[in-house]
């Protein structure tokens, strides 16, 4: 390979003929691109008799230097150019002429940031409307299915219940067990100062029955199941499977959404109950092992907690379940055509469903307090 400075590979002679030499190939592109012509218009002919290599990258550079039109004019009469290379130059030149004008890049303007804010607010509003529409659509399909038990899809329902519910039991139980232990430690530390260590049991009991059990189970499912729903339905959308269902006269809502919503509706309350038990077990372990409260004493105190707290906590589970399932499915349907879009909407599904779960939990806490429950 020659190590000549680039300008020597491109020489404009006095008779207005342009001499090319050396390898005009991709590995030397960087070097060659430093060569320049003062005025491409004066070139009358091309001399390529000392050209040792040419590929599309080299041809691209010539297009850049001379312009596609003059290359197309010069290539047929070029001296010392093999037929193959001439064909390549002509193919590149005519392709560049045929491709049309470069689209103009949009310039940034002062109001753009403001417009972005507006667009974000509008899209938030549209998202809300879309969600309400989807909720209505799902309820409508559900209502229309109720009197037709022969169209209920038990297999899909049970499969979803296993995936979203049964398979989540170990992780939900472990998570709540650990948080239960942490809450007990926290309670013991604070309450010991008042000599009220025994109230640690009440703290764990109340916390898990009313709030923590269902909240942690719902957040777990929001991360685990909402994302799965979006990814499943989203990939089907990318593969045009949803369209295939539609043109066969099958309703994607009935086939895909209803079993998923019902599965979560059944499983989240059960998971919440498991979560409450696991949390209290975690608390009991700390109480027994490091606070010297006997298991019998622990159970005795737990039995004194009014049952309504358990009911209040569990009453939120179906609401969370419907929100998580619907958000997961809807985000799946919003996927457009690419793997990247599946990723975007999966993230969005998890963020939205966790946000909605916590928001609803806060609202419910306020409501229950106002009602003196």
């Amino acid at each position, binding site marked *: 390979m020659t190590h000549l400075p680039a300008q020597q590979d491109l020489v404009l002679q006095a008779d207005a003929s342009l001499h090319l030499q050396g390898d005009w*190939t991709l590995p030397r*592109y960087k070097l060659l691109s430093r060569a320049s012509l003062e005025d491409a218009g004066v070139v009358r002919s091309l001399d390529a008799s000392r050209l040792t290599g*040419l590929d*599309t*990258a080299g041809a*691209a550079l010539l297009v850049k230097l001379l312009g596609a039109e003059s290359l197309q004019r010069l290539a047929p009469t070029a001296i010392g150019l093999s037929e193959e290379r001439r064909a390549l130059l002509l*193919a590149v030149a005519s392709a560049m002429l045929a491709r*049309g004008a470069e689209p103009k890049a949009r310039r940034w303007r002062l109001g753009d940031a403001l417009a972005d804010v507006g667009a974000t607010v509008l899209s938030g509003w549209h998202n809300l409307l879309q969600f309400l529409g989807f909720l209505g659509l799902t309820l409508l399909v559900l209502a229309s299915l109720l009197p037709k038990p022969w169209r209920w899809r038990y297999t899909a329902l049970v499969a979803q219940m296993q995936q979203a519910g049964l398979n989540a039991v170990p992780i939900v139980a472990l998570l709540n067990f650990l948080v239960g232990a942490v809450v007990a430690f926290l309670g013991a530390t604070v309450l010991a100062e008042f000599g009220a260590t025994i109230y640690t049991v009440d703290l764990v009991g109340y916390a898990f029955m009313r709030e923590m059990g269902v909240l942690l189970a719902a957040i777990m499912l929001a991360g685990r199941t909402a994302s799965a729903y979006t990814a499943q339905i989203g990939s089907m959308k990318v593969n045009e499977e949803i369209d295939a269902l539609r043109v066969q006269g099958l309703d994607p809502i009935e086939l895909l959404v209803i079993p998923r919503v019902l599965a979560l509706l059944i499983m989240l309350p059960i998971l919440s109950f498991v979560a409450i038990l696991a949390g209290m077990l975690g608390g009991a372990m700390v109480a027994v092992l490091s606070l010297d409260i006997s298991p019998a004493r622990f159970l005795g105190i737990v039995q004194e907690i009014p049952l309504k707290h358990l009911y209040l906590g569990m009453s939120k589970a179906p609401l969370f379940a419907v929100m998580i399932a619907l958000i997961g499915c809807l985000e799946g349907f919003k996927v457009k055509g690419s793997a990247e879009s599946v990723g975007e909407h999966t993230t969005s599904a998890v963020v939205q469903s966790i946000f909605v779960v916590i928001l609803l939990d806060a609202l419910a806490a306020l409501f229950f307090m106002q009602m003196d429950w």
Partner: protein
Amino acid sequence: MTNNKTGQPPEAVIEVRGLCNRFGQHSVHENLDMDVRRGEILGVVGGSGSGKSVLLRSIVGLLRPSAGRVTMLHKELQTLTPAERAQLERRIGVLFQQGALFSSLTVLENIALPLIEHARLSRRDATHVAAVKLALTGLPASAGNLHPADLSGGMIKRAALARALALDPDILFLDEPTAGLDPIGAAAFDQLLLTLRDAFNLTVFMVTHDLDTLYTTCDRIAVLSQKKVLVADTLEVVAATQDDWIQEYFHGPRGRAAAVADALVRGTTPT
């Protein structure tokens, strides 16, 4: 055509010897031998499920064969160190059946990616070279800034070809390149392939079902059947081979139509 000048076939750039591919109990290739010679366009045909794509995948190294040896440009891919392997992979270009464009990048960025990563061009230079490749494959300039999801099937094929050509490879692998193109686009593709082959002495390994492409572009045709290469030779020899599938393929209604069309173009009588 380079292979008739000296009377002796040019060296093989791809050598497949005793290739076996098995998936569990199911065997796709048994003792398959095959050569691809420098500068030729080899068309690979075979019925559905005859293992054309599997063969392509095992040659480019995406699939480790159960047994046998694949040599490409005198190097055996499976025995190379990762660095040598990357070096070799730079010299091949693959056009996948579905295009396999990176969906998070625009078309121009897709083509510029290997130029930036391997040829170490600046982003601006890479974009310019990418624009030329894009134009070569017949896409308008406005397509460059689109994402793959916004392209039609034919445009995806062209953009993917432009990406396969990005580094001016020695060997080009094409998996059903003209499937999904309209006849005009397919004919333009055939012409482009010939121009590129002549300009760079490019070797092309092409899996195809398009009989017109076979007639117009291919120097040799390899027929995959019964788990091996049944015959690999010029079109005339292959079409005359006594085998039920081959006879059905080349002398069925579509095969005859393509032969007539080719004869009309060349001004000879159909084989």
